């Protein structure tokens, strides 16, 4: 496995911590994402995308156990990232798997919308 180079993002009650896995990258996303989060999140997702390509990741798993809320401004950031993944040629394309917390009811609805946007790339567990 190549060296992993993606530092955590911590910003006002919202954090993303990444680690390498055997087939890609795991992200632990926590806290509340509001309209100010995209200023940091957009750049982080660009770096994540570059790292996923560098590692030839098969999938990025997003652990959402402690993700209490994400506003539409953050949803838009994810859409932009997923659009980039969707536009990759097939061998470079990687899956994005959201591990939802069933007690946080908004998650499944929001992640299902992302799955409809990028079918075959987004999976919701």
């Amino acid at each position, binding site marked *: 496995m190549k060296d992993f180079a993606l530092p955590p993002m911590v910003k006002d*009650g919202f954090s993303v911590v990444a680690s390498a896995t055997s087939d890609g990258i795991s992200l632990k996303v926590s806290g*509340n994402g*509001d*309209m*100010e989060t995209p200023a940091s999140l957009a750049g982080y997702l660009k770096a994540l995308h570059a790292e996923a390509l560098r590692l030839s990741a098969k999938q990025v798993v997003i652990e959402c156990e402690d993700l209490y*809320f994400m*506003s*539409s*401004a953050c*949803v*838009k950031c994810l*859409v*932009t990232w997923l*659009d980039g993944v969707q536009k990759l040629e097939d061998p470079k394309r990687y899956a994005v798997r959201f591990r939802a917390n069933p*007690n*946080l*009811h*908004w998650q499944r*609805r*929001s992640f299902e*919308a992302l799955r*409809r*946007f990028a079918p075959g790339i987004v999976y919701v567990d």
Partner: protein
Amino acid sequence: MPNASAAIQFDYRPRVRLVANARALVKELCDDVLSDPDAASRIALTAHEMMENVVKYSAGGQSSVTVELRDRDGHAYVLVRTKNRAGPDQVERLRLVFDQIDRAADPLAFYDEAIVRSLKAEGSGLGLARIRAEAEMSLAMSVEGDEVTLSAETPVHLRERS
């Protein structure tokens, strides 16, 4: 049916920090009053998106958000309402979004289209589309002078009290 009449209202200068705190309070109150935790989550999402809208687009001054439990013909509803001042451009933008919403019969299809539109345009109405599709709320808008009122409503079931 338990008595369906209660309201909380925040009057505030639009600030981002208040939004998450207000959402958490709305969620907690709804969890206490409603029988369905999913409904509480939908209403909290609505309050958050509507308050962020106010923070983004308010023309200044005092704003308010009200979350009201209403009884109509023996059925309970929750109404989330924001009021804020807005400039003519913002009023026009909102009218355009509401025209599109009114024409779109399928909230989910409209939301999916708003997601695609959001890739190209700021102010694409993604938050309102999300309220309608994910939170399953009906939406309305009214304007008086430079004051804009947005309302979102959903039927709910109240928790039975012993």
